[in-house]
């Protein structure tokens, strides 16, 4: 690479928080409509974006509404008119959207939303856990989880292409760890505006409520005779998303040099034990995996970038050689069976002969409780006990990491 190209590339680096990265991605996507309501820690995204609107950097119609229920409702209305529409929220705001989340996916509207993960009330808390996005995991949205600000930016741009793909036409939420990523400043490599606009292309809607030459009825009453069929059709879109997310990731690599797949296997080649994690915690484990591998301990990390649809095949393939697996849940589903990621990974490995006792769950980080490298090291040490079979019975099926006894 010539020095001139390198210099040009270097100018693309900006010091951005996760929220700033999300706002910059939205500026480059330039949706026709953004409707939003502020909630910590998401507020900054929409505040920054509204500055872009005021400064004339985007031609977006910005609608400040009175609640998150209204925000997503306005976005559903805008998307039904055949335009790109986006919003962002967190925690209780996402919970308030629940009704409309299902309407957006049920109507097959390709809406893109950033969700800055924050613990749900009660008790009231503003810090990170995945209780909010996990609580809506079956609302029919594709869910991408970002490890850092760079992935927040990259996932948002890819989300537009994924959502709008004719075989998918589903809304996508990009989950970002509250404060840890949203307010942490990192070096983010941005694409230039034109590259983003070319990458996402022009939205080709299936229909528009504002097209009198092609009349449509959206949201008709569908009872016992046809509701089941229409929901079954939605499954096809979810199934198609695996391939589309993969293809969009490959295309994105061509313009960015950064590789995105359904899962990221970190040093899994020789791994006999593995940690499965989502979001920023994957960064902690990359560090700890490096430390242990330097000492000859064969441990790897399986980071899930996509949680919905669940990449079961990739999880099975990645964990096939492992003798013990630790699944990290930054949410407690209160199901009596551990966290939501744990039950999904267990279901994926069902029938593969993977010994059930060799898979353990760590619920951690609720309400923003810090996960330190020491805690991550403890998980890897537990895994080695499980793999060896000695003292393995001391490791409980579901553990609470970082909890005071």
């Amino acid at each position: 690479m010539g020095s001139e190209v390198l210099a040009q590339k270097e100018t693309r680096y900006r010091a951005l928080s996760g929220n700033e990265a999300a706002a910059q991605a939205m500026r480059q996507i330039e949706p026709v409509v953004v409707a939003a309501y502020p909630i910590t820690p998401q507020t900054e995204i929409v505040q920054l974006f509204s500055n872009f609107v005021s400064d004339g950097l985007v031609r977006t119609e910005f609608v400040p509404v009175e609640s998150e229920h209204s925000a997503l409702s306005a976005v559903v209305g805008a998307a039904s008119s055949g335009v790109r529409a986006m919003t962002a929220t967190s925690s209780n705001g996402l919970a308030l959207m629940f009704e409309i989340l299902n309407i957006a996916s049920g109507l097959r509207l390709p809406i893109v939303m950033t969700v800055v993960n924050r613990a749900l009330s009660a008790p009231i808390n503003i810090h990170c856990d995945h209780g909010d996005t996990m609580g809506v995991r079956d609302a029919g949205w594709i869910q991408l989880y970002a490890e850092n600000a760079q992935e927040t930016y990259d996932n948002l741009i890819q989300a537009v292409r994924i959502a709008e793909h004719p075989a998918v036409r589903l809304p996508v939420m990009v989950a970002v760890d509250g404060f840890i990523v949203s307010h942490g400043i990192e070096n983010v490599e941005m694409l230039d505006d034109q590259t983003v606009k070319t990458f996402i292309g022009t939205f080709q809607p299936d229909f528009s409520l504002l097209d009198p030459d092609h009349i449509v009825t959206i949201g008709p009453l569908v009872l016992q005779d046809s509701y089941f069929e229409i929901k079954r059709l939605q499954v096809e879109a979810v199934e198609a998303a695996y391939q589309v997310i993969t293809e969009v990731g490959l295309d994105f690599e061509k313009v960015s040099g950064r590789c995105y797949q359904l899962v990221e296997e970190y040093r899994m080649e020789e791994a006999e034990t593995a940690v499965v994690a989502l979001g920023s915690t994957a960064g902690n484990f990359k560090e700890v995996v490096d430390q242990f591998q330097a000492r000859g301990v064969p441990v790897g990390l399986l980071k899930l970038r996509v949680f919905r649809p669940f990449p079961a095949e990739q999880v099975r393939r990645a964990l096939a050689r492992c003798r013990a697996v630790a699944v990290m849940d930054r949410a407690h589903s209160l199901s009596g069976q551990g966290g939501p990621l744990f039950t999904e990974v267990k279901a994926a490995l069902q029938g593969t002969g993977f010994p059930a006792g060799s898979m353990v769950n760590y619920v951690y980080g609720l309400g923003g409780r810090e996960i330190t490298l020491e805690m991550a090291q403890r998980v890897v040490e537990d895994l080695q006990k499980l793999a060896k079979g000695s003292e393995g019975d001391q490791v409980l099926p579901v553990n609470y990491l970082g909890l005071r006894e």
Partner: protein
Amino acid sequence: MTKTEELTAQGSGTGRSERVFNTSSGWKEFPPGGVIRGGANSHHFKTGEWRTYRPRHIEENCIHCLLCWIYCPDLAIVARDGKMLGFDYEHCKGCGICAEECPTKDKAIEMVAEPEEESGI
């Protein structure tokens, strides 16, 4: 299936041909999101299936004032040349407004219970 069972019609006034699906269609035949293409298709939706009481026209009492035609919320009174001719039972929901509003001393419209087994259409 009959023509009236279709939830959407071929090119119904929109200038383009649309896929047809109905309550017998398999899931692959439905449009994504249940979005119905094409307008002027409400006549395909047989609201008369909901009816538990049906209006009966007693012709000898009828003065053809057409108040029933004016009041009917579902355009289910069949009238032509100033004459009340009967009911569109595919769309009459059996609300009874016509019978209520009928002004004659001996009513020209009375509501009678639908037989249990028949839809009345």
